[in-house]
């Protein structure tokens, strides 16, 4: 460090020895709290706050029964988003990676979810059911794992082939799967599935993981997100339902999802692993924000771009201080 720089550093670090003025820090704080409180009360009375009712399985099964039904079949066949997800729910996939770092896989299965039993069979088993459904359930439980897989996969494939149009599905060896899917759809229509999914395992429950994941496997949640303009590809991360501001501070995080290759899932390796890459990028940028004072170039910008001349213009004017040459 040059002598001039050292002198400037010591000057900046030393207690201010120049002219001072009266300053009542307690009064300033009190007035600021009062002003902000009044502003908040005004905005609250004028605008309120967002509160769109949560979606329910009943709503899904009533408004889009075919999609719910097809999703139930996917859960049985093991082809749903949750069933094929990987960690922390199962080992169906290795999950995302960045180069040699397979953090999702390495973290393991900490919230195991068996979509067949926990999304379909267990909830159905809690109900008083018709003879058809009871019979189907008994048949399913008595069958071998390979037989179950064969039935469910055949039916899932058939539904996929006719693009979800259930009435067009040809007859086939689907075993009890159609009856089970119909039973779960009827259960959801009656409003019993919401509670049955949550209550597995005990009286007190605060974990909504199964419900949220099941929702995400179908089109109901996704369609609602699109309608509310919340999709990640359209800056949805920083949006809020209705006319309210959302998490605007996530703009930079959201930004990456708008540009290639991050917005193209087909693009490998970055687009296909965009969630992981963007987490790394934002982690690095957050660290960068903290370390700005020691990052060459970035730390010098305030000296090069004279915005400070506006901030302290009275001081500069009063003392006749011209801008220093860098």
């Amino acid at each position, binding site marked *: 460090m040059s002598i001039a720089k050292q002198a400037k550093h010591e000057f900046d670090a030393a207690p201010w020895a120049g002219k001072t003025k009266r300053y009542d820090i307690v009064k300033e704080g009190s007035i600021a709290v009062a002003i*902000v409180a009044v502003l908040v009360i005004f905005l609250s*009375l004028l605008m309120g*706050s967002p509160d769109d009712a949560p979606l329910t399985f009943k709503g899904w099964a009533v408004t889009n029964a075919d999609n719910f039904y097809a999703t139930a079949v996917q859960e049985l066949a093991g082809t749903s988003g949750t069933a094929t997800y990987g960690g*922390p729910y199962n080992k169906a996939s290795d999950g*995302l990676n960045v180069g040699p770092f397979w953090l*999702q896989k390495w*973290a393991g299965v900490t919230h195991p979810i068996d979509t067949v039993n926990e999304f379909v069979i267990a909830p159905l088993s809690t109900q008083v059911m018709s003879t058809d459904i009871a019979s189907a359930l008994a048949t399913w439980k008595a069958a071998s794992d390979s037989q179950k897989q064969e039935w469910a996969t055949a039916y899932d494939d058939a539904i996929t082939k006719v693009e979800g149009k259930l009435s067009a599905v040809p007859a086939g060896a689907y075993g009890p799967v159609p009856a089970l899917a119909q039973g779960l759809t009827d259960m959801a229509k009656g409003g019993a599935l919401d509670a049955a999914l949550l209550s597995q395992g005990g009286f007190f429950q605060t*974990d*909504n993981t199964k419900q949220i994941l099941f929702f995400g496997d179908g089109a109901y949640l996704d369609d609602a997100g699109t309608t509310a303009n919340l999709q990640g590809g359209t800056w949805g991360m920083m949006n809020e*339902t209705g006319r309210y501001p959302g998490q605007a501070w996530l703009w930079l995080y959201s930004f990456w999802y708008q540009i290639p290759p991050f917005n193209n899932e087909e693009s490998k390796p970055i687009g296909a692993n965009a969630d992981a890459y963007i987490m790394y990028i934002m982690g690095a940028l957050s660290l960068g924000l903290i370390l700005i004072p020691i990052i060459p170039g970035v730390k010098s910008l305030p000296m090069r771009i004279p915005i400070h001349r506006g901030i302290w213009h009275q001081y500069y004017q009063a003392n006749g201080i011209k801008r220093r040459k860098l």
Partner: protein
Amino acid sequence: MSEMWTAKLRNKWQKNLPIEKLLPDDQPAFVVSWIYVFGVLTLSALAVIIASGIVLAFEGPAWYHISDVGKFMNSMHFWSVQLFFVFMVIHLWGKYWMAAWRGNRFRTWATGAIAFVASIATAFTGYLVQTNFDSQWISFEAKDGFNSMGIGAFFNVTNLGQMLLLHVAFLPLLLGVITVIHVLMVRRRGVVPPIDAEPVMNEARL
């Protein structure tokens, strides 16, 4: 006596942060810009957030769906968070363009930046515990990012109970501690002198 931890702490505190610095009644005359107001406005918004949050905590996360008073308190919480971030971002930009880390103030800057990151985490968990459609959507979408880093193994955004406890206990405590440290550092080091000011200017008119 001087070897006592308590005495050491007290002596260090009195040396670095005497009460005159903690509760000053004067400040450098160059502090005249409106940009200086945004630090205290950020703290003020935080105070309103905490106050409204405490009221909401007494009644639970679903109260505001069924009560007009609850709805109003939720609105206060919502808007104070929005203002908090507006004030904080302006404060942050202001301090950047002042190069406010000069003169051994790196830790003041760093704690402020960490507080910004901690605020984002705290607000994020708040959005997850709204118990409405938005929290359903955000939790489903956000899980992928956390899971991709292995964080989802212990930070489960679809677990309402976990997010609620983090939002009302751990994260506010963390943010509060960082904020207190930040403010104490500001008081200890004082306001950074203007860029271009020279030692000779110490006796200047302003």
